[in-house]
Structure formats: C-alpha cells, structure tokens
C-alpha cells in the first residue's frame, strides 16, 4: 500500500497549463458549448442565423488567437513538471506542425461552414434534414418540415469536431490523442447521418462509420495498452526514451503496439486495407460534411500519424517503415484502380481521396524534415481543392436533389461553362498536372522519398507515379463527360449558390492555382513549421 502511495506527491500540485498556447482550442470548445445553449434558449426562427454567426466568429477568433498568442508559445503544456529535469511532459504539445495543422483545420472549417450554411433560399441549411429523429418518410417528418423545424445543432457538433481536430495533432500522449480522436469522430458520425435527401443512405453511412470507427478505436486503445506495457508511460517522449534503452523482457510488446495504434490512425485517413468505410460514408453523408471530412479529418489524422511516428517511435523506424510502405503502396493502388469503375461522383472522389492518402503516406515514410514539410503541404493543398470540389458537387442538381451519377454530368461544360471549368481545373489539380497545387504537393512528398535512396522508396515512388497515371484517366473521364459529350438529361442544372458558397469555391480554386504557380511562400512556412518539440 505504501509502495503505491510513494509515487503520489505529498501536496497537490496543479498541472502546468500554458493558456496562451491552448487559447485557440479553448475558443472553439467554448463556442461549441455556447452553441448547445443557443439550441436550448434561442427561438427557432433566429436560431440558424445565431448559430452560423457564432460558428464563424468562433473560427475567426480562434484564428486570431492562433496567430497572435499561440504561435508565440511553442511549448509542451498541460502536464506535470518532471521531478528530475523540471521540464513539463505535456499532454498537449504546441509546436510548429501542431500550429500549422491547427491553422489548416481552421481554414478548412471556415470554408466548410459557408457550405454548411448554404440555404438556397430555404429556412434551414439545405443539406441537413429538418428533423433527424423522425423516421424517413413518416408523418412526423412531414409535420416537422411544415412546422419549420431545422437542424441548427449541426453547428455546435461541427465546432466540437473542429476542436477535436485541433487537439489531435497536438497530443503529447496517447490518451490525449485517443480523447481527441473520439471528440473529433463522434460529432462526425452524427453529422454523416443528417442528410436531407436520401436519408436511409445517410443513416446507413453514419452507422457504418460509427461501427467501423468504434472498431478502429478499440485497435488504437489496445495498441496504447501494449505501448504502456512496453514503456511504462503513455507519453510519446517516454516511449521514445524507452525505445532508446530497450528492456529485452518487454520488446515483444513494441511492434504490435505500434502497429495497432497505427491501424487506429490509418483508419481515419482511409488507408487501405482500412478504407472500406470511405466510399459509403462519403456518398451517404451530406455533401458539405463530406468535403469537410475529407479535408480536415485527413489533415488532423495525418498530424497525429506524424507525431506518433516521428516523435514517439521514430527510433523503431526499421520496424514500422516497411509496413507503412506496403500500406502506402496498397492504398495508392486500391484507390486509383477502384476509382476507375465508379459511376457516382461522390464515391469517385472518395476513392480518389484514398489514393491521395496513399500519396501522402509516401511522404510520411521518408522520416525526414523534408518528408514532414511535404506531408504538411500536401494536406493543405489537397484539402483546399477537396472542399471546393465538394462545394461544386453540392450545386449540381436534378429535380432538387444532387445529381451525383456521372452520366448526369454529361454536357455540363456547354451549359455551365464556369462551374464545369472550375471543376475541371480542380480535377486537374487532383491529377497532379503542373501549375496546380496537386503537382507541387506530389513533388513535395515524392522528392523526400526518393532522397532516401533506398530501392524500396524508389519503388514506392514509381508505384505512386503509375497510380497517378491511373487517376489521371479517371479525372480525364469526367472532363470528357463534361466537355466532349452531349447532355443526356436536360433537367440537370447548376443552382445559384449564395455568395458564401461562391466564396468557398473561389478561395479553394484560387489557392489551388496559387500553390501551383507560386508555392514558394507557403513552402517556406511549412519548412519553418517542420520542427517537432520532443
């Protein structure tokens, strides 16, 4: 008994918390909590406006806090000072990559919230069902619609998710990482099930995402347990130290632990063979949610992967790199090849996102500063393009609902030259054609891998380039449909978006072009950000 108590300090010492470093996350979480109160107390007719304004204000505030306060506080925080060294072992680590990814997530969130709030002249957000609790097609649902119900609770959910995403890449220990993972995931599960149209598909997607997500969380937790057994601590810094001085009795726990944690993280980015949920969820979820999820979840999850692999278990690189390379190759091939046969634009973009996850993993496997900055650049570039692309998918309608079948996109270029032109440009960016951000990003992840100069990484890059060639075929096929084919279905039209959605599309496309033509400034930023605090 006394032996156990010996570890407990005589007096209670509060954890050291640097509130300045945490300010952006705190702003987002408090706004989310206020949003819940708004749901309870603000009358229905003004609820939508209040929620959207609150969300936008919170995101802007968080950006401001990030730029003004947090960026000057590069610390590991929210933890106890070490007895020996006096250094804080932080549950949250605010360093270059964390700040960059938080800013990235905030930018994505701001762009996404404009598409979330798109009403197309209706009462509530167009993409979301007025009453999620009602059985689809039931009398209750009809009554709710007639009564002017709306799902404004999407916005607090969204903010919780954003908060989780900001915490995820900044987690200094595996338990915080797990909590962040759940905080970002749970609201996403709900939001996936809230589509206004094709509600059964949407609910199926939500359930699938939830079940598989819970499954992967279990893997993650089991891995954390094994690593705790190995290192005697969940802090990444301690795990790293334990690998440096291996204890032969427990080494058997290390590799399974790393792999199980990695499975939990790779599930979130949709890497093969943990990608099965992606097409169904991307297709079923409301399109703005899909765009947000594809961009921001990927950014946050790659941040967590980078921190786990580069800070926690970098010394065990020879154990995990071969596995990660195989997963990366598999992801690229699966994503590219399966996207060829898709007939639904959202499923197609889902498979393309799988392929892109594979490309990003190529950068991760490099385990170098260049690999880190390349990965950071890629998630930013890919996310901007993705949000704009899904915002456009949301506009192409047939009889009120989205025209997601590819055949419905035929001849779009002739009738809506601007929309089709921008979409074609975004597709070229996905394909990685020079002078778009996609090319710069691919270069940024492939070059460090080649610089590693092992035959394995050369092979990986070659597989990546061949997969790119396959994906080019896929994207070119859509361009063929839009431009070189005559329309089959005349009631497909692009509906007039609000200025907000237009702004999202414009910002996404302009940045896609800028990062392709003049990426030097942003590359400079990621290069300076590419330094983890250990």
């Amino acid at each position, binding site marked *: 008994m006394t032996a156990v108590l010996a570890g407990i300090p005589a007096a209670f010492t509060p954890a050291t918390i640097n509130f300045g470093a945490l300010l952006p996350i705190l702003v987002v979480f408090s706004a989310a909590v206020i949003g819940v109160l708004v749901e309870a107390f603000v009358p229905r007719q003004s609820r939508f406006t209040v929620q959207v304004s609150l969300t936008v204000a919170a995101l802007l505030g968080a950006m401001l806090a990030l730029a003004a306060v947090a960026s000057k506080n590069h610390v590991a925080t929210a933890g106890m000072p070490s007895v020996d060294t006096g250094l804080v072992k932080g549950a949250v680590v605010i360093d270059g990559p964390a700040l960059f990814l938080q800013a990235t997530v905030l930018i994505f969130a701001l762009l996404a919230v404009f598409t979330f709030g798109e009403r197309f002249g209706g009462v509530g957000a167009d993409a979301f069902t007025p009453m999620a609790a009602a059985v689809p097609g039931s009398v209750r649902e009809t009554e709710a619609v007639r009564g002017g119900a709306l799902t404004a609770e999407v916005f607090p959910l969204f903010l919780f998710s954003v908060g989780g995403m900001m915490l995820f890449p900044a987690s200094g220990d595996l338990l915080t990482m797990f909590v962040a993972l759940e905080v970002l995931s749970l609201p996403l599960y709900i939001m996936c099930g809230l589509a206004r149209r094709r509600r059964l598909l949407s609910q199926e997607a939500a359930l699938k995402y939830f079940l598989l997500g819970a499954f992967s969380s279990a893997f993650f937790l089991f891995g954390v347990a094994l690593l705790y057994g190995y290192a005697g601590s969940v802090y990444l810094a301690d795990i790293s130290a334990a690998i440096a001085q291996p204890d032969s009795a427990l080494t058997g726990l290390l590799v399974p632990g790393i792999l199980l944690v990695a499975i939990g993280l790779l599930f979130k980015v949709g890497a093969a063979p943990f990608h099965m949920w992606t097409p169904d969820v991307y297709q079923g979820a409301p399109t703005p949610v899909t765009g947000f999820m594809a961009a921001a979840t990927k950014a946050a999850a790659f941040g967590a992967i980078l921190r786990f692999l580069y800070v926690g278990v970098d010394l065990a690189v020879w154990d995990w790199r071969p596995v990660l390379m195989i997963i990366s190759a598999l992801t690229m091939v699966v994503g590219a090849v399966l996207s060829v046969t898709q007939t639904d634009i959202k499923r197609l973009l889902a498979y393309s996102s799988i392929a892109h996850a594979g490309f990003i993993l190529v950068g991760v496997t490099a385990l170098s500063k260049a690999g880190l900055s390349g990965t950071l650049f890629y998630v930013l570039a890919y996310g901007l393009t993705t949000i704009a692309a899904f915002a456009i998918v949301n506009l192409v309608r047939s009889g009120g609902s989205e025209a997601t079948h590819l055949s419905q996109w035929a001849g779009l270029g002739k009738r809506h030259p601007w929309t089709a032109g921008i979409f074609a440009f975004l597709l070229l960016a996905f394909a990685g*054609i020079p002078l778009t951000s996609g090319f710069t990003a691919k*270069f940024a992840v*492939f070059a460090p891998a080649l610089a590693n100069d092992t035959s394995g990484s050369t092979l990986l*890059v*070659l597989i990546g*380039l061949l997969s*790119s060639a396959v994906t080019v075929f896929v994207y*070119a096929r859509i361009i063929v449909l839009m431009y070189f084919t005559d329309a089959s279905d005349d009631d497909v039209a692009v509906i007039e978006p609000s200025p907000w959605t237009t702004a999202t599309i414009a910002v996404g496309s302009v940045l896609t072009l800028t990062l392709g033509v003049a990426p*030097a400034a942003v590359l400079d930023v990621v290069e300076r950000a590419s330094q983890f605090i250990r």
Partner: protein
Amino acid sequence: MNQFPWLTVIGLIPLLGAVVLWAVPGIGSRAKEIALGASVVTLLVAVAAALQFNTGGTEKFQLVEQHPWIPQFGVSYALGVDGIALSLILMSVILVPICLLAAWRDLPEEQQGRERHYFALMLVLETFMIGVFAATDVFLFYVFFEAMLIPVYFLIGQFGGPRRQYAAMKFLLFSLAGGLIMLAAVIALYVQGPGGADGFLLTKLAGLQMTESTERLLFLGFFIAFAVKAPMVPVHTWLPDAAAESRPATATLLVGVLDKVGTYGMIRFCLELFPGASRWATPVVIALALVSIVYGALLAIGQKDLMRLIAFTSISHFGFIVLGIFALTTTSWAGSSLYMVNHGFSTAALFLFAGMLMRRNGGSKMIDSYGGWQRVVPGLAGVWLIAGLSCIALPGLGSFVSEFLVLMGTFQRYQVVAVVATTGIILAALYILLMYKRTMTGPKPEGLDHVRDLSPREKWVAAPLIALFLVLGFFPKPVLDLVNPAVKTIFSSIKVTDPGPMAGTVEGSTK
C-alpha cells in the same frame, strides 16, 4: 549581358491574347482577328529577339533569364536558348499564325460561340511551346512539357472528329504515362546533383558523376517520355489517332511542334546529361529509329485516311531525326536540327492543304473519295504536290538538305544503318506519289462545279510555307549557322569527336 526578358515576353504575348479572348465579354466575333494579331506580334518580337542572338557567342545559352521560383525544391525560372532551341522557337512562332489563318473557318456558323475557346487554346499552347524550348531548368521544362498536354487535350477532345474522345484520352494517357516516368527521373536527377536552391539548372546537372546503373535508369526515364512524344515505334500508336481526329491546324501544331519536344529533349537531356548511358543505348535506339523509318513509311503507303497517312509519314521522318541524333556526328546533328525545322513546315503544309481539300469534299478524309481533283482545284493541287515533294525531300526543297545531312553524318559512323535508312526515301516517294495519284489524277469528278480553287486567305497560308521550303532548300545557311555552334558546344561538353575520314575498306559498302 542582355537585360530585356525577350523570351518571357515572347511567351507572354500569346497568353495575354488568350486571357483577353476568355475574359473580355462580347469579344467572340473578333476572336480570330485578336488571336492572329497576338500571334503575329509574337512572331515579330521573336524575330527581334533572334536578331539579338549572337551566332558567334561563346556562352552555352543566350538571352538568359534566371529568377528563383521555388527555392525549396531547387527550382528556378530560368530561360535561355542556344541555336537549336532558337530555331525551334522560331519555327513554332512562324507556324502558329499560319495555323490560325488556316483554321479561320474551322468551326461552322452555329458554333461561333465556341470560336474564342478554340483560338484561345491555340494561343495558350503557343505559350507552352515557347516555354518548353526555352527552359533551361529541368523542372521548368517538365512543367511546360506536361502543361502543354492540357490545351491539346481540349483542342482534340472538344473540336476534333467523330472519335475525338477516344483519341484525346489516348493522347493524354500515353503522354502522361511517359511524363510521369520522367518525373521520377527528374526528381532522382536532382538528388544526384549538387542540390541547393537552384539545383535544377541544366548547367548544374551536366557532367555529373553517377554510378553506371543510376545513369542508365535516369536516361531511360527521360528517353521513354521523349520516345512517346517523338513518337517512335513501338510507342507511336497514339499519334495516328490523335492526328486523324484533330483539326488540321491542331494536327499541325501537334505533329509539327509538340512532337519535336521529344527529339529536342533527346538532344538537350538524354545526350547532354547522360552521355555514357546514351552510348550504351545507342544500338537499340538506332534499331528502333530504323524500324520507325521503314515501318512508318510502309504503313503510310497502306493508309486510306489522309490524316493518318500524314501522321505515319511523320513517324518515318522522326525516325530520321532520332537516327541523326544518336549517330552522334556533327553533320548528323546539324541535319537533325535542320530536319526538325523543315519537318515542321512540310508537315504543316501537308496537314493544312489536306484540310483545305477536305473542306471542299464535305470533310471526307478518305483518299478514295477523291480522284481527278487537279482538274477541280488546279491551284490547290499544285501546292499539294509541292508539299508532298518537300515531304519526300526533293532536292531544292528544305527537307532534302536535312535528310542528306542526316544520312551523310550517319554514314560516317554506321554505314549499314545509313544504307538501310535510305530505303525510307524510296518508300517516301511511293507513299506521296501514290497519294497524289489517287487524289489528284484521273478523270474529272462529276458535280463539283461549285468547288472553288484557293481563296486569298488560303493563298496566304500556302505562300509562306512554300517560300520557306524554297529558302531553306537553296539557302539553309542561316539555320545551319544558328545550329552549328550549339552542336559544337554540346559535342565538346560531352567529349565526342567525329570519326576520322574513312579509309578505303568500308564494310557493307558497294562502292
């Protein structure tokens, strides 16, 4: 040192024209005039730039510009030309206005709204063509190399013939597959090089010390992309489809200029950067070049479709150019460089005149739907014959000099090869004269009384091309003066000398 950014300006003018066409509303009816104006201005500025070029200069590149572009990747915005690049740029900027003029009535009345896209895409293509020949940074070259595909893809896919979707897709996939392999080589080359913020500059990458296997792999990465582009047998299959389905003006730019990037790249990258590996690959490349010459010519003889026929003649001619490059003598290089220019003009003439014929025959590309047309359109028949004769390298017309130089240079090193290659000339006479016979001779066809001979606009298309044939045929000295110093510089940098004069015992010679 020349401070004025000539090459950037030449490249920007057409781009500006394209932006005006797209951005200014209500300009659609004037699209053709604006596009032609932009391309003519480009031509004038390019001529002015060429006058600044000092053929006796000792620097490797002239008219150089260099600015950091993406220093993190080691990429600079670096332009500059030597004689070979400048001659190709001049060829391109001469061809574009001619093509625009020839494309004047390509779109039917009801599609006037799309006209500005058509002409704007051509102008964008011109910008990329200039950039690709002027880039002296490997990364920048790659960017232009790939970006060039997009306007062509749309030009074929949106404005082409009935199987345009298939042709556009095939073109894109072949080129991109080659290009992506090249991308791997581009990155790996940088890793081999000195690195740094301007590590992609050609001057920094020449003469690197690499292991033999690395050099060979890198060579292959570049060579495959260029072979697809050039196009050489066996990766040529996209060209006949793409050429047959595109409009004559597009086909001209595609075959006359774009494909030159392949042969130009072989000179600039394969041989200059990887001389050792090039020597290792020479037997295979020369064999493939010979196959291209003979096989392309044989297939050309068998074609029923005019456009495909011209495409196959080009495959044969590209065989000659590649042969000259890999024969690696100063004579054959001068020949190949000159051939690149001449081939551009003679192919342009064939495609554009074929387009004029096709318009008069309801758009039919089938050779057997013609016959006796020299009685219907005697003027057009005349220029058609001259274009054909230029294509088969009749003495006095441009291609003769270049073909002769290639064969002579090749003979200095590989006698048997040169002898085999000459069969290409005989086969060329066969395909061109057979085509002329089938289209032009015979009894006058019925019911074509309304068909007019060359219009003034078409005469303006034909006149400069024929003038160029004659000038380059009788007086190729200006181009050779431009090219020869560049060839010498490259040869001394890769340490190659011409084989000495041959002794009496020439194997395989019948003399």
